[in-house]
């Protein structure tokens, strides 16, 4: 695997940060406007947070109730311990039913379990139908944002991609690109045997799932194919429709600044007798894949997340480096906590460190997750993995700062020595801290230390 540093350099080489910053900033501003014109925003966020805490505190009870309700509606429930079990179930179903083409609604949990690859390996053509995700799939890439997967591309790049992969004339007009995708995908919607979605929420007491989209692909995928499979992270439940309404009040506002997205689609099982259309089969795959371990850990609060993407848009680090730099399915502040807690801190110890703990994420989070605190928890946990050299260095630093005389002597000396490495008031290269100054520069220290200045001033 590449390092965080290498991925950032790749992103800068491709000019990604400019596109990301523009897109994320726009979403951020839209959210702020939506919050400003919705007087109930703050108490609604409080209630939304409570709802998440309440449902998670009795998650086993609600999961059982949800599964029973889905079955009562004529659906089938599968509990998947991990990604492999989830994929095996869906691939097995496709094989059994003779499915050769599946259409998909954009879903982070299906990205997480790498479902597309599993289906393609089994000979099932799997087509992403969210416009952004479709573009990402054509390019052979991964999404760079939870709700705006192709934030990292400009329209010229998309136009070139369409011309190359779909054999159409080049255009960079968003309306024309949209028409090309509409025609291409409409035919696939109407001929696919399986529609695969995620679930923004599952409603425990009536077994329905809510799917929020703007394009309408969520409705097409869950209406036209004869089999609908919904893949849901096990934490995504609400107790009832009353709680669902609260979550919907904050979801779209936080994500795109809309009061509601164009389509809030509530699916309660397969087509019923007498109904003129809809799928014949409805399956819900409930995925653990590391979530129960997270639930039992000190960062369980991250499971409150409803995947709106607001923290990405607010994050100064995300805006600078883009989603791909994180190297994980979930980018941004949410990804820095979720990824190490789902997949192990040892492999992902870099991520919690990529934050200034500025708190912009918590400020916009619809369920007020204390992301900075969770990042510190993870950093604390990973301190034992610090190199011996760094630990020795920190021990020396601790010794110096707790002995005033030594501290004064050293800062005076440092000010003199540092002057040698300074140019125009900045230190850009410090030989003994070569790695540290590779990406950072420091203002040159003042010729006089603060202590000396203070003493003189007092005299």
């Amino acid at each position, binding site marked *: 695997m590449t390092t965080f540093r290498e991925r950032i350099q790749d992103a800068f080489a491709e000019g990604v940060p400019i596109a990301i910053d523009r897109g994320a900033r726009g*979403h951020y501003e839209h959210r702020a406007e939506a919050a400003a014109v919705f007087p*109930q925003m703050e108490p*609604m966020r*409080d*209630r939304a947070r409570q709802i998440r805490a309440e449902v998670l*505190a009795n*998650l*086993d009870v609600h*999961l*059982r109730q949800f*599964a029973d309700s889905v079955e009562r509606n004529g659906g089938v*429930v599968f*509990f*998947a*311990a991990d990604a492999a079990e989830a994929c095996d179930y869906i691939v097995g179903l496709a094989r059994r039913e003779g499915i050769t083409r599946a259409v998909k609604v954009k879903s982070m949990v299906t990205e997480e379990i790498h479902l597309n690859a599993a289906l393609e390996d089994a000979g099932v053509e799997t087509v992403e139908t*969210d*416009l*952004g995700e479709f*573009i990402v799939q054509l390019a052979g890439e991964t999404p760079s944002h939870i709700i*705006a997967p*192709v934030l990292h591309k400009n*329209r010229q790049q998309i136009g070139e991609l369409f011309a190359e992969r779909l054999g159409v004339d080049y255009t960079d007009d*968003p*309306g024309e690109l*949209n028409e090309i995708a*509409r025609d291409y995908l409409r035919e696939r*919607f*109407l001929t696919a045997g399986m529609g695969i979605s995620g679930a923004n929420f599952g409603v425990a007491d009536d077994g329905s799932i809510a799917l929020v989209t*703007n*394009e*309408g*692909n969520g*409705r*097409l995928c*869950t*209406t*036209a194919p004869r089999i609908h499979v919904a893949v849901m992270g096990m934490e995504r439940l609400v107790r009832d429709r*009353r709680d*669902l*309404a*609260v979550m919907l*009040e904050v979801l779209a506002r936080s994500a795109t600044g809309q*009061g*509601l997205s*164009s*389509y*809030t*689609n*509530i699916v309660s*099982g397969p087509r019923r007798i*007498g*109904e*003129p*259309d*809809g799928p*014949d089969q409805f399956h819900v795959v409930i995925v653990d894949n590391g979530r*129960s371990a997270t639930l*039992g850990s000190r960062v*369980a609060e991250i499971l409150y997340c409803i995947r709106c993407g607001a923290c990405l848009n607010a994050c100064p680090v995300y805006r600078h480096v883009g989603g791909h730099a994180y190297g994980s399915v979930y980018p941004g502040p949410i990804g820095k906590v979720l990824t190490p807690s789902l997949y192990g801190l040892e492999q992902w110890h870099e991520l919690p460190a990529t934050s200034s703990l500025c708190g912009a994420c918590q400020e916009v989070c619809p369920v007020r997750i*204390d992301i900075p605190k969770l990042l510190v928890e993870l950093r604390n946990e990973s301190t034992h993995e610090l190199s011996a050299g760094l630990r020795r260095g920190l021990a020396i630093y601790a010794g110096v700062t707790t002995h005033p005389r030594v501290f004064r002597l050293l800062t005076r000396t440092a000010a003199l020595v540092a002057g040698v490495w300074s140019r125009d008031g900045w230190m850009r290269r410090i030989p003994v801290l070569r790695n540290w100054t590779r990406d950072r520069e420091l203002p040159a220290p003042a010729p006089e230390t603060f202590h000396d200045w203070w003493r003189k001033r007092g005299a």
Partner: protein
Amino acid sequence: MEREQFLGRVRAALRGAVLPEATGPGVAPSIEFDDPVSRFIEQATKAAAEVTVTPSAADAVDAVAGILDGRPFIAWDDLDAVVTGWEEVVVSRGWERIDATVDATTRHADHARIGAVPVGITSADVAIAATGTVVVTHGDGRPRSASLLVEDHIVLLPADRIVPSLADGFERVDWDTSNVVAITGPSRTGDIESILTLGVHGPRRLHIVVIG
């Protein structure tokens, strides 16, 4: 994994879980408007729906005919309950209503046929003033395609069905169905450089005819 084993794992995890709660009132704040109908029209228009307000059912038929303009259409079976006699008026002009029933054995062919129909007419059991949303309940005699596969979706909405909030709306909906959709404006995307584009996969235009 077996259900009991899965749930057992969750239960075990919950014993050590740290789940901080917000301190709050324990209930959702209520949403109210002095004039819900005006608020609905304002918000639906803002969401790019085309709203027509008609004083009577007869005017609503004219509005529907104006949008249809001779094109074939799909419609729900129970629209007479909203606008009595609307279909006779339209059909008497020779405009064709297409059956939208999908047979399980001819699914793809049926979808191809229905997918070519340009207009769909539905009602909405309830509408939300806060966001300009129509809540469309599909079911017996109420094909999903009428609000999904068409280019123009027409919603017949008696004004007294407009309630302040989504929570109010959810209480009024008859949930004995496989599919309820809260629709706010036409299909849209901002996926390409955050530039708003209408009509991605669903209807390009949403017409709401408010009656009374």
